[in-house]
C-alpha cells in the first residue's frame, strides 16, 4: 500500500461523512422507487470515494464497478418494471418511530463497541507481508484472495455461478431455452446506440487492464469482470446484440469456468503440491493468472446474465395482473 500519510486533509472527510449520512437517511425515508434508486447510485459514488479515503482502493474499485454500472441499471429497470405505484401503504408513525429508535440503539451500541476497540486494531498485515512473496503477487489483497483464503474466494465465485442458475430457474417452464429479455426496454434512442458503439471497446480495455493490474496493484478479476459485464449489458440495451439463450453450452461453460478451474487446480494441488488449493512452487504465478483470467470471464458472463434476467418468450408480455395470475398455472 502506498503511503497516504503525507499531507492528509482529514477535515475534508467531514463533509463527505455528513453527505453520506444525509443521503442514507433520505434514502430510507423516501417512498418513490425511482428517486430512491437514483439517490442510491449517488450514494454508491460517495461510498467509493469514502473507501479511497479509508485507503481501500480494491474495495473502492469494486464499489465503483458494481455500484456505478450494473447496480443502477438493475435497480432502475426493476423500478421501471414495477411501475411507480407501490401497493403497500406506508407504515404509521408509531411503527416508524419505534423502528427508528431501535436502529438508533443498535447504532449507539455498535459505535460504543467500535470506539472501544484497541487502536491500532490487531491485524494480519505482518504475516500477509511476510508470506506474500511465495505467491509472487505484488498486491496483498490478491494474495489473500487467491492464496491464503483461496477457499473463500472459490466458494464466493461458486455463489455467483449458482445465482445465475437460480435466476434462470425463475423463468417460466415454456420459456426455458429462450433468451433473457429484461433489457428489452423499448426502442433504443440514437444517443444510446452511439454509446453502445463507442463505449464497449474502451470498456474492454479498462476491464482487461483492471484484471491484469490486479496482480500487483488494486484491481482484479471481480472489478475487471464487472466492467466487462456492464459493457455487455450496454450492448444488449442498445439492441446491438442479444443475450445468449440459456441452453447455450458455451454460455454455461463461461459461467462455471472460473470456479471450476479454480477447484480443479486446487484439487490438483493436493497431488502436485502440498495441499488442496496449494500451488506448486514453479507454477504459482502462471496458475494464479490462469485462474484469475477464467474468473474474470466467469464474473463478466455471470453478472451480465444476472442483469439480463431470466429467459422470456418474445412478444409483448401480458399486463401485470394477468401475468401474475398466469404464473399460478403450471404446465
Amino acid at each position, binding site marked *: 500500500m502506498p503511503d497516504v500519510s503525507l499531507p492528509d486533509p482529514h477535515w475534508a472527510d467531514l463533509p463527505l461523512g455528513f453527505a453520506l449520512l444525509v443521503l442514507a437517511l433520505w434514502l430510507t425515508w*423516501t417512498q418513490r422507487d425511482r428517486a430512491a434508486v437514483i439517490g442510491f447510485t449517488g450514494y454508491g459514488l460517495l461510498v467509493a470515494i469514502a473507501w479511497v479515503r479509508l485507503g481501500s482502493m480494491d474495495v473502492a474499485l469494486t464499489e465503483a464497478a458494481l455500484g456505478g454500472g450494473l447496480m443502477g441499471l438493475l435497480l432502475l429497470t426493476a423500478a421501471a418494471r414495477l411501475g411507480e405505484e407501490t401497493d403497500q401503504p406506508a407504515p404509521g408513525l408509531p411503527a416508524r418511530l419505534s423502528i427508528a429508535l431501535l436502529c438508533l440503539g443498535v447504532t449507539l451500541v455498535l459505535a460504543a463497541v467500535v470506539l472501544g476497540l484497541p487502536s491500532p486494531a490487531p491485524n494480519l498485515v505482518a504475516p500477509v507481508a511476510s508470506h506474500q512473496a511465495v505467491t509472487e503477487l505484488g498486491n496483498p489483497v490478491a494474495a489473500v484472495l487467491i492464496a491464503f483464503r483461496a477457499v473463500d474466494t472459490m466458494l464466493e465465485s461458486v455463489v455467483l455461478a449458482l445465482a445465475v442458475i437460480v435466476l434462470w430457474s425463475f423463468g417460466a417452464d415454456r420459456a426455458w431455452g429462450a433468451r433473457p429479455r429484461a433489457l428489452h426496454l423499448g426502442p433504443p*434512442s440514437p*444517443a444510446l446506440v*452511439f454509446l453502445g458503439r463507442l463505449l464497449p471497446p*474502451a470498456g474492454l480495455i479498462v476491464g482487461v487492464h483492471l484484471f491484469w493490474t490486479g496482480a500487483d496493484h488494486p484491481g482484479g478479476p471481480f472489478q475487471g469482470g464487472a466492467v466487462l459485464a456492464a459493457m455487455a449489458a450496454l450492448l444488449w440495451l442498445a439492441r446491438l446484440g442479444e443475450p445468449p439463450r440459456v441452453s447455450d453450452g458455451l454460455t454455461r461453460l463461461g459461467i462455471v469456468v472460473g470456479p471450476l478451474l479454480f477447484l480443479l487446480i486446487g484439487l490438483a494441488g493436493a497431488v502436485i503440491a502440498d495441499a488442496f488449493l496449494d500451488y506448486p512452487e514453479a507454477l504459482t504465478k502462471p496458475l494464479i493468472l490462469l485462474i484469475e483470467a477464467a474468473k474474470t470471464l466467469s464474473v463478466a458472463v455471470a453478472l451480465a446474465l444476472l442483469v439480463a434476467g431470466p429467459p422470456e418468450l418474445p412478444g409483448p408480455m401480458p399486463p401485470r395482473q394477468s401475468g401474475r395470475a398466469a404464473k399460478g398455472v403450471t404446465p
Partner: protein
Amino acid sequence: MSLADAFTAVFVSLGAFFFFAGWVGLVRFPDALSRLHALSKADNLGLGLVVIGLLPQASWPFGTLKLIALWLVAVLVGGASAQLLAGAIHAQAAETSTGGEPGRGTEAAPGANGNDKATS
C-alpha cells in the same frame, strides 16, 4: 514555482471554477433543460480543464495517455448522457402538456412538486 506548476495551477483553478458554475446552475436555474446545460458545462469544461492542468504532473507516457483517454471517455459519455436526458425531458414535457401522467414529470410540474414535498 516552476512553469509547469504555474500551468497546472491556472488550469486546475479554471476547472474548479467551472464545477462551481455547474453547481450554481444546477441549483439556481429555473427549468430542467437549462440545468442540464449548466451541468454539461461542468462535465466537459470543468473536467477537461482539470485534466489539461494535470498533464504536466503526470508520468510520461502512460500516465499522460491515461489522462487523455479518461478525458475522451468523459466527453463521450457526458455528451451522450446529456443527449439521453434531454430527450427524456422533452418527451415528458410533451407528454405533460398533452395530459400524460403528471406524477412522472421531470419539469417542475406542480404535480411532481407536491408529490415530492409530501415525501421529503
